[in-house]
């Protein structure tokens, strides 16, 4: 039975989720630090825009992405000229995951950074440390538990992305059929054994990830 089992959704899901989480971390951390420590005109508006995907229905997010990178969109046209199509490829799934997972990482990281005593950063500055050094030697180590929590949440959200992914990446087996999609369509078509197996795998996998990361965060403290 094992050879017949289609592992592609799992491999694809993990790949999509890992890449999306990497992007989200690289973009989210600097932004979280900026918003945690600085005040500027229009900050509230920006804050709302960033957290919007948290409350919007995934199909709305999917629609928005279609407008952004779809065949008839501005960005879509530019990419098509360069020979690149994002729609209905797994990169579209990555993009959908990034958009929905970003607010989770951002909010956790921002709260964690805010909880770091700003006097510690000031002290480091008077001792000659530049912004990068302060961030990597003081802020990040002290904010790490919160940042890790955000990372786990973002990964889990990316792994479970369904609505927006279906709209922009479609359900192409082996190409864009992530586990949530595979489960849905397996149930739809009555293949309950496949569905059960997929559900068991994704549940066990997610549990393991959360368990290990929480363990690591504890020992780090």
């Amino acid at each position, binding site marked *: 039975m094992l050879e017949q089992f289609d592992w592609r959704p799992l491999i694809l899901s993990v790949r999509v989720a890992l890449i999306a989480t990497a992007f989200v971390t690289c973009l989210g951390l600097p932004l979280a630090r900026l918003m945690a420590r600085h005040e500027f005109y229009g900050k509230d508006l920006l804050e709302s825009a960033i957290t919007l995907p948290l409350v919007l229905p995934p199909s709305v997010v999917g629609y928005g992405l279609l407008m952004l990178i779809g065949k008839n969109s501005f960005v879509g046209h530019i990419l098509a000229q360069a020979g690149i199509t994002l729609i209905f490829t797994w990169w579209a799934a990555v993009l959908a995951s990034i958009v929905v997972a970003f607010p989770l990482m951002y909010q956790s990281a921002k709260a964690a950074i805010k909880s770091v005593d700003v006097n510690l950063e000031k002290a480091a500055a*008077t001792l000659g440390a530049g912004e990068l050094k302060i961030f990597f030697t003081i802020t990040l180590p002290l904010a790490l538990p919160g940042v890790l929590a955000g990372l786990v949440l973002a990964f889990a959200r990316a792994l479970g992305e369904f609505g927006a992914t279906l709209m922009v990446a479609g359900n192409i087996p082996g190409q864009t059929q992530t586990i949530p999609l595979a489960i849905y369509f397996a149930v739809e078509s009555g293949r309950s054994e496949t569905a059960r197996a997929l559900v068991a795998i994704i549940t066990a996998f997610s549990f393991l990830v959360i368990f290990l990361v929480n363990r690591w965060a504890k020992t780090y403290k």
Partner: protein
Amino acid sequence: MLEFQINKKLWHFTLDLSVKIKNQILVLWGTSGSGKTTILHCLAGLVKPSSGFVNLNGRFLFSSAENINISARHRNVACLFQNYALFPHMTVRKNVLYGLKCKDRKCSISDEMLDSFGVGHLVDRYPGQLSGGEQQRVALARALIVRPQLLLLDEPFSALDRNTKISLRQELKKLHQQWQIPFVLVSHDEEDAQFLGDVIVTIENGQARKNSLKVVSV
């Protein structure tokens, strides 16, 4: 030598202070909220005054007239914060060595040097495991080891019991004689001011009061 004129608009009043001292201990004495800490932050480069200048040993750290504002990181001005601001996730050794610029292995400080600050026996402990007096000594070691040209102290003894206060005061006075750099100390404690201050300026609502406690002619 430190000379400054700081003017800064705050919530309830305007801060306006002019002082000139040699390698002495300047005490800014006043109640909470009188603007003393803001003056320290202006000297450190953490806050920008509305106008004025700060000149340390002939070098302008800040000058509104000439549009100079050197960042805290480049001022070579060390700070002792009110709660010591020791990095809780680093050992005493790592805390003290933080400001030193040296390549990996070459960053060793002799044990005698650490002992002279009274922290030699604490190097492998974490700030959370130290008493108030020990934390203060570590903070002082960390600040002075980078050889600053000016040391700022924000209510350094407020969290300590009387006996620790008295012995640390004496240590501070000795350190000042050793290091021969200006110290600017903020305090609301009259005894601290009397014991330590070569020059004492009383601050009230951001301004120096006419008749200060004691001024040694500069």
